């Protein structure tokens, strides 16, 4: 039997497959399609201190092998999450992680400390990389100083597993990774979406209400893989890799580049059953390659 279990600095996953925030709702949206308990973990929607209506429509544009989104963190706020949503989803027998976003350091602190009280949430993913909000968001994740300051502040109030989600919209992602590691992050997830843009030539208008948006899907995979590889060589905490994973082969590539676990985002829209298929596919790969423990594959890229 192959062993798919992953230990992310104390956070244990039954397998390395998680879902990416903002692409998996609160999990419930997928109940008809899959048994969520079969996943290593789910990341719920980006959650902020206060209710956010998000950006105006249109919020989405298809691109070759991918899509741009400008949802802008639409959510009802952390109080609503704790009181209404959490009781509804806490029965899932998998790790439920909340993606925490904010515009100010105080927002992050307040949201994280409220989530800290929820028994069935073993970890948060600190989103310092959302390209779709004007203030805060990605701004925190694009300089070492500001990334370090958010992580430092949240670390003081949050005592469970602290995952930090990194932005690819930087010159050197490994510098940011080192900065958040130094402030006590338990793991890093990468990448968030790449800042992009789409234009309708006929009407001469942008396709998104916000003009620019976040690019995701298979078109970003080579960039994401490269960044996982760079960060793997720079830090000692576990990496959760994502960006364009569509199948088990893609997932294995991220693990070989240095990811201890992976997240699947946009692919859920095309095949709402993709996550459980990836779990099966990883198992099949391990059997075929006679790999006993998934951890043996992490960073096992062979370079002469």
């Amino acid at each position, binding site marked *: 039997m192959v062993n798919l279990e992953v230990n992310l600095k104390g956070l244990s996953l039954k397998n390395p497959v998680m879902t990416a925030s903002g692409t*998996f709702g609160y999990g419930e*949206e997928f109940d*008809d*399609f899959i048994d969520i308990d079969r996943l290593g973990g789910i990341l719920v929607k980006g959650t902020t201190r206060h209710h956010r209506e998000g950006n105006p*429509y249109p*919020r989405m544009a298809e691109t070759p092998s991918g899509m741009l989104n400008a949802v802008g963190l*639409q959510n009802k706020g952390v109080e609503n999450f704790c009181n209404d949503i959490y009781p509804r989803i806490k029965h899932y027998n998998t790790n439920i992680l909340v993606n925490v976003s904010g515009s100010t350091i105080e927002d992050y602190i307040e949201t994280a400390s409220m989530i800290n009280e929820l028994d069935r949430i073993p970890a948060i993913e600190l989103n310092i990389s959302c390209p779709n909000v004007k203030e805060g968001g990605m701004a925190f994740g694009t300089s070492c100083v500001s990334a370090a300051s958010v992580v430092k502040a949240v670390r003081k109030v949050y005592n469970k597993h602290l995952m930090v989600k990194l932005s690819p919209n930087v010159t050197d992602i490994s510098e940011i990774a080192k900065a958040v590691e130094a402030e006590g992050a338990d793991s890093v997830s990468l990448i968030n979406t790449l800042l992009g843009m789409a234009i309708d030539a006929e009407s001469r208008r942008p396709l998104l209400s916000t003009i620019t948006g976040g690019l995701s899907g298979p078109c970003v995979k080579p960039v994401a893989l490269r960044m996982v590889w760079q960060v793997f060589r720079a830090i000692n905490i576990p990496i959760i890799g994502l960006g364009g994973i569509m199948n088990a082969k893609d997932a294995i590539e991220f693990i070989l580049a240095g990811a201890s676990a992976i997240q699947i985002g946009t692919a859920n*829209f*095309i095949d*709402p059953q993709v996550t459980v298929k990836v779990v099966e596919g990883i198992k099949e790969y391990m059997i075929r390659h006679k790999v006993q423990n998934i951890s043996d594959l992490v960073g096992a890229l062979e370079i002469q």
Partner: protein
Amino acid sequence: MKKLVQDFEVLHREELNDEHFTLEIRAYEPLPEIKPGQFVNVLVENSTQTFLRRPLSIHFVDYEKNSIKLYIKRIGEGTKKLGTLVSGDKLNLVFPLGNQYSIPSSSKTLLIGGGCGVAPLLYLAKHLKEAGNEVTTILGVRSAIDAVEMDAYKAYGRILVTTEDGSLGDKGYPTQHSILTNENFDYTFTCGPEPMMKAVARYAKEKNIPCEVSLENTMACGFGACLCCVTPTKTGNKCVCTEGPVFNINDLTW
């Protein structure tokens, strides 16, 4: 109602005119109950230009044949590819998605469709008739050759046409049809280009009768996971794919 991901087999493609065609597809497993106004999200395979699924209204359901009919307008890569499918080809669907039109009883109902917005109206007409309503459908098209499937609508009530060039029925847009001034209705349903639906909504407000519209916002998932498809409503942004596509105009900010 449980949502499914399933392969279907293409039974038949019928070309209606240069732009429009219908695709009749059969499920391998018994179809679930499908409500008028619901849609499917189809996977267009083997093209990097069609990464996301394409949402399409359910035009008709034949439970005896275990089949669904789609009514499609060729506008881009995806719909053009669908227009090359032949009998025996496979098509992967996520379905049934969205809410449904309300079905009143013993009412005089008016259905107004334009462009490929007519797609959900045929199945709606059937349900309305079966619930004891009187059904009048107005199809707004450019020219006589676009007035397709008239006999299918006739089976459920009266069918009227407006053409932009006056080659059939009343000349003009469907909201300019003489019947709107000559008769009174209890309920209106519409689907089509937004300016047309807004005109129908104005008519319904004037007459003080309920009006339901079906929106076609661009979608990424189709089942409530991405929040890309929202429309503003009086109670905040709502997902067109789960809380719509059918909305009562009183809930919208129109």
